[in-house]
């Protein structure tokens, strides 16, 4: 195969010349200033082109693109007309007349005989979801759901008419706040309003971090409350 001067130059630049061909070409380069100048020009152009395109292959492929390309599993399908996060689609009915009919008021006061835990923890221990508990400081809290975290702790989302929060129960029976977000404005009947307008982002992030299982239904939750959250001491 007889190569032209330009073809030999290109092959030399690409490291494709070997042995006798390589030796001969480099001798030619040394004795031909025009060829050497062309080699320098092409080499410079190659570097320029390579450098210009390098960032394109370094740019991250964003998740939306991967999804569009069918390279990731799309998020689990959500029922039509239900774009709410899972904690608003939980097993217990929430909102409207049904919720109002379920609201019961529990008074949680420090008991003589010494449950030393904070009133919020006591309320979360005893109040079923959608019932309301009055705290000694005047807050009214309404648990919304109960679900188990991947680490085994029980967690509850609840609201106080103003904010929504996620708390998980430690092994001493204290409920530790894991996340807080703005709730919607309190409804005029003081029922905790969560159905719309709540800032879900904080709670969604918490549920993802805690890897919460599906929320319990009312019966299972009632049983859990009855056996004091799996037998951990609440005294």
């Amino acid at each position, binding site marked *: *195969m007889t190569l032209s001067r*330009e*073809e030999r130059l290109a092959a030399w630049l690409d490291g494709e010349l070997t042995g006798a061909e390589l030796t001969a070409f480099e001798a030619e380069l040394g004795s031909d200033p025009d060829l050497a100048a062309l080699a320098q020009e*092409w080499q410079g152009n190659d570097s320029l082109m390579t450098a*210009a395109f390098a960032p*394109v*292959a370094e*740019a991250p492929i964003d998740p939306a693109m991967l999804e569009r390309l069918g390279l990731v599993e799309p998020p689990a399908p959500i029922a039509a007309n239900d774009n709410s996060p899972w904690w608003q689609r939980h097993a217990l009915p929430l909102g409207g007349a049904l919720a109002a009919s379920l609201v019961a008021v529990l008074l949680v006061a420090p008991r003589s005989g010494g449950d030393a835990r904070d009133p919020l923890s006591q309320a979360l221990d005893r109040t079923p979801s959608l019932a309301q508990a009055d705290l000694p400081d005047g807050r009214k809290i309404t648990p919304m759901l109960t679900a188990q975290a991947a680490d085994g702790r029980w967690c509850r989302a609840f609201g106080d008419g103003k904010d929504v929060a996620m708390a998980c129960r430690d092994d001493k029976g204290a409920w530790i706040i894991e996340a807080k977000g703005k709730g919607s404005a309190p409804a005029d009947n003081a029922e905790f309003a969560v159905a719309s307008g709540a800032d879900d982002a904080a709670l969604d992030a918490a549920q993802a971090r805690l890897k919460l299982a599906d929320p319990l239904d009312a019966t299972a939750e009632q049983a859990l409350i009855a056996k004091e959250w799996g037998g951990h001491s609440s005294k």
Partner: protein
Amino acid sequence: MEYLTTLVVMGAWMEQAGLGAGGMRAAIVAALPRLRRFCQAMAGNSVDGDDLMQATVERALSRSGQFEPGTRLDSWMFRIAQNLHIDGARAAKRRGTAVDVDALHSLAGSDGRELVEGRSQLAAAQRALQALPDDQRVVFVLVVIEGRSYRDTAEVLDLPIGTVMSRLARARGRIAEALGETRESNKDAAR
């Protein structure tokens, strides 16, 4: 080279485990950044390049049975992309679609990630590449930008090595002219 090893290992793994779709998807994701660059270089701008990449991935997924395990998945995808690009260019020619060169230039790198300097550098490089006919451009992109050997390139494009060599020499000649023109016009603008 780590990248290459990954692909080869994945190919072998897919063959062994008969893992079809899941393994194939993972290997495609690994090859995506380079495929994206290849597609943008062939298409002339980032928007059309990403469209070409999407069409390439769709075809690769729908024809995953045609991929030979143990060979390079990215080479296979480059070949698919090149064929789609040629088909698309033919269709555009039949429709008589005029290519608005200024629009291409303003689109090149328009995703806002590059700094202005990087963008103008990429735009100049795109301009030079678009001065090449498709058959020279693909050889130049594979060898110079993707760093493939002549033999690899000949295999991807199903060409004799001699053809790869002659196209590369001609491509470099034209690139030199195009970049030379850009330099001249920059000098004029600076005056």
